[in-house]
C-alpha cells in the first residue's frame, strides 16, 4: 500500500523521537504500520526535502561506518507542526470511524 497523503505527518512523528536518516525513517514507518505503509524512496526523499524547505526539518551529514549519512531532525516549527498534525488526524479519523460505524 502506498498512501502519500499522511506521509509528512508520519515523518514528523517519526522524527519526534530523535534525529534519523531516510532509510531508518522508511523502515520505522513500515514496521510500525505492520507493513501496510511501505513508502518508496522516490516518494520519501522528496517529502523529506520538502519539509526541510518549509523549515520544519533541518539536516546534517554524519559519517557512519565509513558511509556519509544525512540525518534529519525536527526544528521548533516542526515540533509544533507535528503536534498540530496529530491532533488534526485524531479528529479526522474519529470522525471517519463514526461515519463508518453508522452512529446516528
Amino acid at each position, binding site marked *: 500500500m502506498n498512501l502519500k497523503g499522511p506521509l509528512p505527518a508520519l515523518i514528523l512523528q517519526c522524527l519526534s523521537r530523535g534525529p534519523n*536518516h531516510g*532509510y531508518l525513517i522508511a523502515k520505522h514507518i513500515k514496521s510500525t504500520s505492520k507493513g501496510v505503509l511501505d513508502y*518508496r524512496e522516490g*516518494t520519501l526523499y*522528496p517529502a523529506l526535502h520538502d519539509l526541510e524547505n518549509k523549515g520544519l526539518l533541518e539536516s546534517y*551529514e554524519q559519517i557512519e561506518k565509513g558511509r556519509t549519512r*544525512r540525518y534529519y531532525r525536527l526544528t521548533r516549527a516542526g515540533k509544533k507542526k507535528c503536534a498540530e498534525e496529530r491532533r488534526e488526524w485524531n479528529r479526522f479519523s474519529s470522525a471517519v470511524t463514526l461515519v463508518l460505524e453508522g452512529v446516528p
Partner: protein
Amino acid sequence: MRRRPMSLQEWLSIATKGLAAEGRERVRREIEAHYEAAVEEASEQGLDTEVAQPTALRALGDCGKAQRRFNRVFLTEVEEAACKEMLRGNGFFQTEVGSWMMWSCLMIPAYTFPYNQMFLGQRWILPGLCGIALFVFWHVFSQSLSRFLNIPMALFAHAALSIPLTIALILCLLHGLQWASLISDRQAMVAQSDSVFLVPFILSPSVWVTFRMYRKVRGHAGGTATT
C-alpha cells in the same frame, strides 16, 4: 527479448535529471546510501546479493515519478541559471528592476507632478526630467544592491519589488497611457485607478513562482551542515 534490468546509476541519472549540480549530488549520495543499507540488510538476512540488489532497486520506486517530485523540491538547472544570471554583473538590474522600473520611473512623476508648472515653455519637460533622474537613481541603486545580494536575498527582493512595480506597469497598460494624454487628462486617469485591484490576480503567478524558488534555495542552503 527480455529487457536488461535497470542499474542504480541508471535509476539515479533519470531521477536526478534536470536538477542543479548540488541537489543532484545530494540526492545521489542519499539514495546510494539508502540502497547500500537495504542490500546490506537483505544480505544479513541470508538473501543472495543477486536477489537483494534488484529487490532494493525495485523498492526505490518509479524513477520518472521520483524525478518529477525531486524537481518540485530542489532547484533545477534552469532555475539555478536564472538565479546566477540575476546576480551576475548587471543581471539583477536587468531582470528584476530594469523593465519594471523603467515604467514606474516614468509613471511616478507623471502621476504626482504639478502640471501647471511650466519649464522652458513646456509642461512635460519637468516631469520628464524627473522620470529620467529617478530611472538613473534606480539603475545605480540596483547595481550597488546586486553586489551585496546572495541568491535567496535576490529572489526575496524580486518578489518584494515586483508588487509595486507591477502595479505601476499594469496601471500604465490598463490606461493605455501616453505622455500627451496623461498630461491633458490627468484627473480622469487618476479616477480610473480602481482597476489597480486587478493587479493581484495578474501578479500572483509571478510572485508564487519566485517564492517557490526562494523556498527551494533557502532549504537547499540550510541543509549543508556537516558533523
